[in-house]
């Protein structure tokens, strides 16, 4: 009887939690935007599911026939270690850690263990965990059907990998809340990559042996699950310990130092805002991680390098263009949301909307110009075409994408919580699907133009055409700004209203 009652209470509690989350979503002021973002999110998810399943179905054939490898399972195991390494990185940037309004729940009669358990478990069926199955299941079925593989061995191999996937899941939650773990894992990954790059150490041998042993000795699959349980309880204990307003939920106060940035005075009236934005970037964790994420864009050009035969030169161009757009796409996408917490102040100060927006634009332009310069130096070893591509992309980013981002910002009414390192459950992710969405129209057009130019003439003409559009955009600056200001003015009151809600 007693236990039945307990189950009933527990079920009720779960229901209550879920309904709270439901309300938070549907009653949020930016619901319209949320809906669209949700639809696109689902579209993305579907896309990845299809791709992953296709990969799972095709890899048997690809490995045995195209690569002429006899044992496809052995082959996959060879590279699994890299798959997991990349997965940790992807998770860190794309997966949001669980968010729950903890403080309000602390003094309600809900057991602390239940709060933590709910926060940790509600993401168990996250896309980042499930997606692995879409590869594993078709791949394993084919191994079983076509190859001569032991069903028990395959089952235990699958279970082991699933266990490891969940280990990365909980590890990600820890990484997001503990910088020490973040840095040590990052260092570990860089070390692995470095050792592999300079061919000092071949990880594939060990990866192969390790993962293949799960197939050969099914009992070994228990090991990842044992580690998983250990990690889960570590995470659990970490959060449980943090459920006090003077420990984990404490607002950490850093000692402040005055920053004058007098060297910025040369920018005249603009410097007033540049100084503040610089302080924002250095002092707000959220802004800092966003800008750091943008820095990684510089290296985007390496992704498609040496692979022009496979992807075509327009993909390389796309990568070069992206390499100068880090700040634009990462930081710029949140203009004016960065000012959301004090937007009323900005709207009352002795500065016209036009000047305010121009100052934001100038910041983005300045950063893009610097990134273009850095990227063109970085890729100069690739020859004149690479330099031209970087510069053309940079001009396009400045002359077109700068406006587009700013213009889109008038409609992006989600407030940014600058102090979101307030508690370990807080949302401090800078990179999300919404930001990714706005970038689509900004990229397809120039790549298309480049493609046409390089296809009918040559690569340099393609670059020139893209650069020309950018220059055209720059000459129309005043006209475009009039429109942008108009949009911002029309949206002003609803933006102010949306920013009032801090979530």
């Amino acid at each position, binding site marked *: 009887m007693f236990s039945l009652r307990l189950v009933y209470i527990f079920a009720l509690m779960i229901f209550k939690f879920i309904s709270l989350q439901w309300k938070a979503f549907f009653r949020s002021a930016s619901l319209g935007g949320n809906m669209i973002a949700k639809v696109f999110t689902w579209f993305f998810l579907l896309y990845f599911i299809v791709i992953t399943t296709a990969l799972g179905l095709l890899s048997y054939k690809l490995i045995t026939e195209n690569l002429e490898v006899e044992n496809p399972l052995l082959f996959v195991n060879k590279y699994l270690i890299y798959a997991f390494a990349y997965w940790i990185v992807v998770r860190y940037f794309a997966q949001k850690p669980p968010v729950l309004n903890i403080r309000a729940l602390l003094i309600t009669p809900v057991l602390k263990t239940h709060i933590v358990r709910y926060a940790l478990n509600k993401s168990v069926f996250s896309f980042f965990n499930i997606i692995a199955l879409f590869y594993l299941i078709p791949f394993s079925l084919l191994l079983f059907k076509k190859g001569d593989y032991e069903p028990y061995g395959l089952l235990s191999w699958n279970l082991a990998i699933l266990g490891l996937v969940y280990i990365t899941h909980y590890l990600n939650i820890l990484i997001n809340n503990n910088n020490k773990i973040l840095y040590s894992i990052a260092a570990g990954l860089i070390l692995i990559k470095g050792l592999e790059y300079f061919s000092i150490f071949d990880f594939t041998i060990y990866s192969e042996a390790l993962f293949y042993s799960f197939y050969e000795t099914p009992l070994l699959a228990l090991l990842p699950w044992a580690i998983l349980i250990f990690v889960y309880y570590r995470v659990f204990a970490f959060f449980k310990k943090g459920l006090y307003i003077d420990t984990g939920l404490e*607002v950490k106060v850093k000692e402040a130092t005055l920053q004058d940035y007098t060297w910025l005075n040369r920018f005249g009236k603009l410097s007033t805002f540049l100084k503040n934005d610089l302080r924002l970037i250095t002092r707000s964790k959220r802004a800092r991680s966003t800008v750091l994420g943008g820095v990684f864009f510089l290296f985007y050009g390496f992704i498609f390098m040496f692979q022009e035969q496979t992807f075509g030169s327009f993909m390389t161009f796309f990568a070069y263009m992206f390499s100068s757009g880090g700040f634009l796409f990462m930081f710029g996408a949140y203009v004016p949301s960065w000012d959301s917490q004090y937007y009323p102040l900005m709207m009352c100060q*002795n500065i016209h909307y036009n000047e305010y927006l121009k100052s934001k634009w100038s910041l983005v332009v300045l950063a893009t110009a610097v990134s273009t310069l850095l990227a063109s130096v970085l890729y100069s070893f690739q020859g004149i075409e690479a330099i031209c591509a970087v510069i053309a992309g940079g001009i396009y980013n400045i002359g077109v994408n700068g406006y587009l981002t700013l213009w889109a910002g008038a409609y992006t009414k989600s407030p940014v919580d600058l102090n979101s390192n307030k508690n370990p459950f807080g949302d401090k992710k800078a990179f999300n699907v919404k930001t990714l969405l706005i970038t689509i129209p900004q990229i397809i057009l120039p790549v298309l133009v480049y493609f046409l130019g390089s296809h009918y003439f040559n690569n340099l003409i393609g670059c020139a055409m893209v650069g020309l559009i950018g220059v055209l955009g720059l000459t129309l600056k005043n006209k475009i700004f009039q429109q942008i200001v108009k949009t911002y003015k029309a949206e002003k009151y609803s933006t102010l209203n949306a920013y009032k809600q801090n979530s």
Partner: protein
Amino acid sequence: MISFKKILKQYSKQTVLDIDSLDIPKGQTFGLVGNNGAGKTTLFSSLLDLIKPTKGRVINNGVDVSQSEDWKSFTTAFLDETFLIGYLMPEEYFYFIGELRGLNKKEVDAFLVQFEDLFHGEILGGKKYLRDLSKGNQKKAGVIAALIGEPKVVILDEPFANLDPTTQIRLKAIVKDMSKNKDITVLVSSHDIQDVTEVCERIVLLEKGRVIKDIVTSPQTLKELESYFKGE
């Protein structure tokens, strides 16, 4: 002069502000009292063009605030913590506001000297960002920032609430001092009728968005307001 002309603000049929006509002459120290939901902050927000009235116009010294941004050059305000930039140190915040109002660092420093008493050593020269200051100290910084750059119109929402007694007395003295200057129009709202009667030359009482009383402050004013709020 500031005039509200036939102002009506409704949120889905619920009227939060309904003022036929309200003029505040230049130099007046104007107090706004009323219970929660009376429309005090809504009134100030409409004057600052932070909300758009459903009907009517707000004219600030000849400028229709929803049509032109020129009022920004002579108007300052501190309504709540959304007027603070959390990641700045108080000094940096003052310099920022000062720069926007055409004052350089030295001029801001010179301006701040007179408030040393009020700051009580807790605002300047500390090692904290605005976001880490106590609510009371945040309010002090915000109110003083609203006085930088010789504004002609100063709007303060609940400036005396949540302050310690000493600060309240000092801040009231500052506002009284301003009321002597016939160039500055000061608009203050408060829940505390004693504070407003002490500081303001004229008091308007709002209820459910309407002007219920409009009185020139006299020794009887406090009694009059008290009896109203008692429900007599």
